[in-house]
């Protein structure tokens, strides 16, 4: 067993937790993930790092044939996400995304109701996410003892340390993440795709409007309304195509609206119209989504048996792409057209520039 963290305090706490669990002092500590991944006795890793760090260790682990449980959102950019998918598939490693809602029964049942046509043809999916926060300009502060700040920044641009930049709050800064849109979008857009059967495709038109803070450290959109159009033929339950709207204007969760009813699901539970839809079960000849009662156990089972996990890498990519496309549309201030197969924008070289970002030396994928 080993733990790796660029914050010595966090690292020590993690090692203590592991040692107490096993009743020994065998857990080794690393500051540099490359030293850990270079070991020949590591079977699997759990990667829980800020978004700007998701791709590099994931790809390195995959190249070293190490199975991976990794946090959502899959990656900071669409390009890095695709690189992770390629590495995982090419190296045939087990991958579980931390999209643990898939291991909650009510999310699965809600999606099965939709997938089995019980609300008819779906015309609209509304994904509700939280409103973002703001903070004002922040002073430069001394780097806390034990924090390898240069390593924490890693591939992201060099910026002075301040407390509200790091750890939990990286989420609200576009150099490291994409705001609530990506932080929560990774969860509920994933459920939206699961219910619609669109886990390996994406929208073809995205139009986003949002409010970005004009000043202050946190610069991700606080309010957002992203309209995504999916064409006919990509969803088995939307033969005419459908619209997905992602916004903080809606109640949290995924709401599927069809010709014959609706389903709304979030962490508190699910509701349907008609109400009796909740009592239905997917039959033997119907769509039965993969069952998992425990997200971590599902991953460990896959490590042992090499079966697929309930949250594989490619659905994670297509889920977070919705949020990335929304952010790109908002930042450009206009509608964009997307080719989900080729993974570039249609006749839009400016938007294509936002598919990837150069990394601070020496980092690369």
């Amino acid at each position: 067993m080993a733990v790796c963290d660029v914050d010595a305090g966090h690292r020590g706490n993690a090692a203590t937790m592991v040692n107490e669990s096993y009743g020994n002092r065998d857990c080794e500590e690393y500051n540099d993930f490359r030293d850990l991944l270079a070991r020949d006795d590591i079977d699997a890793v759990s990667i829980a790092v800020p978004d700007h760090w998701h791709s590099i260790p994931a790809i390195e682990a995959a190249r070293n044939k190490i199975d991976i449980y990794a946090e959502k959102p899959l990656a900071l950019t669409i390009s890095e996400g695709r690189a992770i998918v390629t590495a995982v598939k090419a190296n045939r490693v087990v991958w579980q995304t931390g999209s643990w809602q898939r291991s909650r029964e009510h999310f699965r049942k809600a999606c099965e109701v939709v997938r089995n046509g019980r609300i008819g043809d779906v015309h609209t999916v509304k994904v509700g996410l939280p409103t973002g926060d703001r903070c004002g300009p922040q002073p430069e502060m001394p780097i806390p003892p034990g924090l390898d700040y240069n390593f924490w920044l890693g591939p992201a641009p060099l910026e002075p340390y301040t407390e509200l930049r790091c750890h939990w709050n990286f989420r609200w800064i576009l150099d490291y993440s994409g705001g609530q849109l990506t932080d929560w979008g990774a969860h509920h857009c994933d459920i939206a795709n699961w219910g619609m059967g669109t886990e390996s495709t994406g929208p073809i038109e995205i139009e986003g409007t949002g409010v970005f803070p004009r000043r202050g450290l946190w610069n991700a959109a606080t309010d957002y309304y992203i309209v995504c159009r999916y064409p006919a033929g990509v969803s088995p339950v939307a033969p005419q195509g459908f619209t997905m709207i992602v916004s903080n204007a809606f109640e949290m969760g995924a709401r599927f609206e069809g010709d014959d009813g609706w389903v709304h699901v979030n962490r508190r539970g699910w509701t349907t119209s008609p109400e009796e839809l909740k009592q239905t079960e997917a039959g033997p000849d119907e769509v039965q989504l993969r069952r998992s009662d425990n997200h971590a156990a599902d991953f460990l089972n896959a490590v042992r048996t090499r079966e697929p996990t309930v949250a594989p890498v490619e659905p994670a990519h297509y889920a977070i792409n919705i949020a990335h496309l929304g952010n790109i549309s908002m930042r450009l201030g206009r509608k964009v057209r997307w080719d989900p197969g080729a993974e570039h924008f249609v006749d839009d070289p400016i938007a294509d520039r936002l598919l990837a970002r150069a990394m601070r030396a020496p980092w690369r994928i």
Partner: protein
Amino acid sequence: MCRQLAVIGTHHEIPPLARALQQPRLSDMARYALAAMPWKAVDQVLIDSLPEAPPHIQVGIINTLGERKSYAALQALRPLRDASNPAVAEAAQHAVGRIEGMIIP
């Protein structure tokens, strides 16, 4: 500024960004803007910057040439696989592999 230029930068911004590539405090962000620009002129600027750049900056430039899959850079990159600086040599090895299609991320 360079975050904006990555999106809206034009050919006019290439020369000043090229000069910034050689400055340790500015190099990464200059490259941040240049890397997003689609034109072959950017590849040439990056290639031309290699000989004068110190090793740490060379690594960044090499990485970007690899990610851009710049075939024009192969002639400059291949000899760097034998560079005395191990970071430069390793970056060049990886970049050549990316460009030649032998390494896929």
